[in-house]
């Protein structure tokens, strides 16, 4: 048996090979130009070179802002994502000796103590505007972490659902275990999601050593625990994208800004007595190649233009006082005066034990 090579077939193969390699070459070329969006050839080395910003997955700022930063500061900003807030923190800790960038954004107050413990960050030397100091991480005596944004994890309710049934919506954590609200609550798990962990901390702050009993009552009241925020909000919640059948959900204080009813109002409300404040920080990594560039990025993150962009690009609140909020946010959202909190040192000490105990509670 012998199979001759067909001339047209060979030509087709060659053509295909060319197309493929051609595409990828174009691709690589564009990739490279995309890494230096400043466009100014020769910025590298001249005005401070590249500064590498490591972030969590949800980080995003409009390209316009990034370009402006590069133009005005002379640095090329290179961004790198490293998983969610927990994965980011773990990576930073694992790479303490050889940092994966110059500056990191996205470590929050539930993971911050782990980073402090491992000495991941160097002291930040910037003129922080009002609001940054006030949100500093307790225990960060060296001033390594700069607060960039805040948000609260709060229980949200579907106001239309309760109005239709002529039922009062719950207001407090105690209400959630009330039989009147049996089978209506869905929450993401503490071991598998960051808002879930924040909600567990809420209950620990509220009930102290009795938190486990409260959770038992909650589960007896047919509360549903799912993996991630996406599952809880988008699938089970009545006002989520999937129109589920549970009108109470663990989400954020900013969520009502996204459930507009088309008539200037919103169909959901955050329960302000059930909130846990999350603050996200940025910091210069110890041993950074470009510490000056890192400081410049820190100053940029708390500058008015970035602070104003935070709500629409990352759906969090700015920390800097006097920053203007988008219209819907100002109109439709409310913020808790006095959210629940647990000391970072205490979190660090008990995190594993709490998560294991909680895990046993929900899986049994």
């Amino acid at each position, binding site marked *: 048996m012998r199979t001759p090579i067909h001339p047209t077939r060979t030509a087709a193969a060659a053509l295909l090979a060319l197309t*493929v390699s051609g595409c990828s070459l174009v691709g690589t070329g564009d990739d490279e130009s995309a890494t230096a969006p400043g466009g100014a050839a020769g910025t590298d080395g001249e005005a401070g070179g590249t500064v590498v910003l490591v972030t969590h997955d949800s*980080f*995003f700022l409009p390209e316009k802002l990034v370009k402006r930063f590069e133009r005005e500061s002379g640095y090329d900003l*290179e961004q790198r*994502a490293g*998983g969610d807030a927990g994965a980011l923190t773990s990576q930073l800790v*694992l790479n303490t000796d050889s940092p994966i960038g110059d500056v990191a954004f996205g470590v929050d107050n539930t993971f911050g103590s782990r980073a402090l413990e491992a000495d991941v960050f160097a002291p930040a030397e910037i003129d922080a505007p009002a609001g940054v100091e006030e949100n500093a991480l307790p225990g960060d005596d060296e001033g390594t972490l700069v607060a960039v944004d805040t948000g609260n994890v709060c229980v949200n309710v579907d106001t239309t659902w309760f109005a239709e049934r002529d039922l009062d919506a719950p207001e407090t954590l105690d209400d959630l275990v009330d039989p009147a609200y049996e089978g209506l609550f869905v929450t993401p798990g503490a071991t*598998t999601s960051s808002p879930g962990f924040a909600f567990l901390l809420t209950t620990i702050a509220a009930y102290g050593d009795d938190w486990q009993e409260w959770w038992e009552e909650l589960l007896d009241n047919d509360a549903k625990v799912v993996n991630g925020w996406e599952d809880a909000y988008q*699938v089970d919640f009545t006002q989520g994208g999937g129109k589920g059948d549970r009108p109470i959900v663990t989400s954020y204080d900013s969520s009502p800004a996204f459930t507009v009813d088309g008539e200037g109002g919103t169909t959901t409300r955050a329960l302000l007595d059930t909130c846990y404040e999350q603050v996200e920080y940025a910091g210069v990594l110890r041993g950074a190649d470009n510490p000056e560039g890192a400081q410049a990025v820190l100053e940029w993150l708390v500058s008015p233009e970035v602070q104003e962009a935070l709500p629409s690009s990352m759906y969090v609140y700015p920390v800097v006082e006097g920053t203007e909020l988008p219209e819907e946010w100002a109109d439709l959202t409310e913020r808790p005066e006095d959210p629940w909190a647990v000391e970072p040192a205490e979190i660090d000490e008990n995190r594993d034990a709490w998560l294991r105990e909680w895990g046993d509670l929900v899986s049994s």
Partner: protein
Amino acid sequence: MTAPRRVLGLVALAGLPLAVLGVFFVLPVAGMLERGFVVDGDLDVGAVLEVLTRPRTGRVLWFTVWSSAVATVLAVLLGLPAAYALHRLRWPGRRAVRAALLVPFVLPTVVVGVAFRQLLGESGPVVALTGGRVDLDGTAAGIVAGLVFFNVAVVIRGVGAAWEGLDVRPGEAAAALGASPAQVFRTVTWPMLRPAVVSSASVVFLFCATAFGVVLTLGGLRYSSVETEIYLLTVQYLDLQAAAALSMVQLVAVVALLVVAGRLRAVPDPTLARSTARPRRPRRSDTPQLVATALLLVLVAAPVATLVVGSLRVDDTWSLAYYRALAADGEQQALQVPALEALVTSLRTAVDATWMALLLGGLVALVLTRRSHGRAERRVRSVLDGFFMLPLGVSAVTLGFGFFITLDSPPLDLRESPVLVPLAQALVALPLVVRTLVPVLAGVDDRQRQAAASLGAGPLRAVATVDLPVVWRPLLAASGFAFAISLGEFGATSFLARPDSPTLPVLIFRLIGRPGELSYGTALAASVVLAATTAVVVLAVERLRVPSLGAF
């Protein structure tokens, strides 16, 4: 050729893939394991082994094994008739169906997870239609269904490619001698098909055992697999000893599985004859296979239909609003980067990942399928075979973290290289490319190459005249597969990609992570676009295949 020259040739061919795998797989994984085993400069094996005695570890292992096994069996049972109907029979629309059945494999797990939960959940159509008797939400059955949904394409492709090339004459001869169709299958077809089935099944099992997103989104909190447990231990607890212990278990299990699969795969007749017959029209006796294929199509279509319907329903009316939102640019709330731009990024990355996977996979397949002279050489080949399958058996978290802790100093400071993302995706696709090519190449009679060589053809020329014509179809199939995998890859990409140039799956993940119907609907629309793009690419690959190929 003399023995030393042969070994040198083997090493030269295997050199590039070995180097790539060494740097981008062995090094990072070893780095992570070292962090687990070495505490304060001392080797602490005891503490790592202690993890294995925890009751929770046992539960996690057991769940991983049985759920993957059940899912693999189901995927093979559902995939075999479809592989037959789609590759041996000729009927209108079969290419479209073939492309459609590949779509699930490349959808981002987050989206499919959400679509599945919507389909199976409390207020979903399945519960409604069955009056609540079938409620799979958050159950092990739901996880298994998800695993089958994703992996049945692997069976159809892998077995289909081999089935397509089977010589039909022995079967026809048997039938002419009075064998029933079942007897023909059992005594003639199955022995020839078995290597491909075992190959596909082992790949499916590995995919199931290392599935992360599916278990996480469909399992609720009651179920944890080795993969999700490694994630938890690393990310939440930073318990590297425990993570290292589980990673070791995973690796050992994969090696064991590959050895077993290698034994089962052994071809009865290494000079497997290639087919010359084209697919034929269906006969009455083909009805069961066609019905089974239709049924599979319905099962696969249900979650996809949930996505499509969801993307078209705005405020309980039909609308294209979510698709219009896809074109919106970064200034608008729903989308930070236009979906079109993300799609272009995805396509571009996929092109790079595809040629990398084909280059590496092609070399590996060549190395593995040359006839071995002597025991030692055969052993070297089988070790290499297993080695190139290993990436399937390592947690994405371990690999991702490993990248960052090992490739951090010159000359290997690759953390900032734009090559990382396509390369990581190519590594994910590599085992599939190898598994698609090897059965076909192995079926080429080595005497043809010898004949070519004796007529004066150099090694390259011999490959071009003997192997290429036969491997051409599977090569295209493999490239389509690699391309599709790269399009949908999310785990490694989200770890390594730049936030400012997201791929489409990363963009979808961001959209689904924010409240509001517009974001959710747009995520569904983007998923439909991703699915459609994949289907078009796969369909194009199918079209490109020269029909008369393999004929004299």
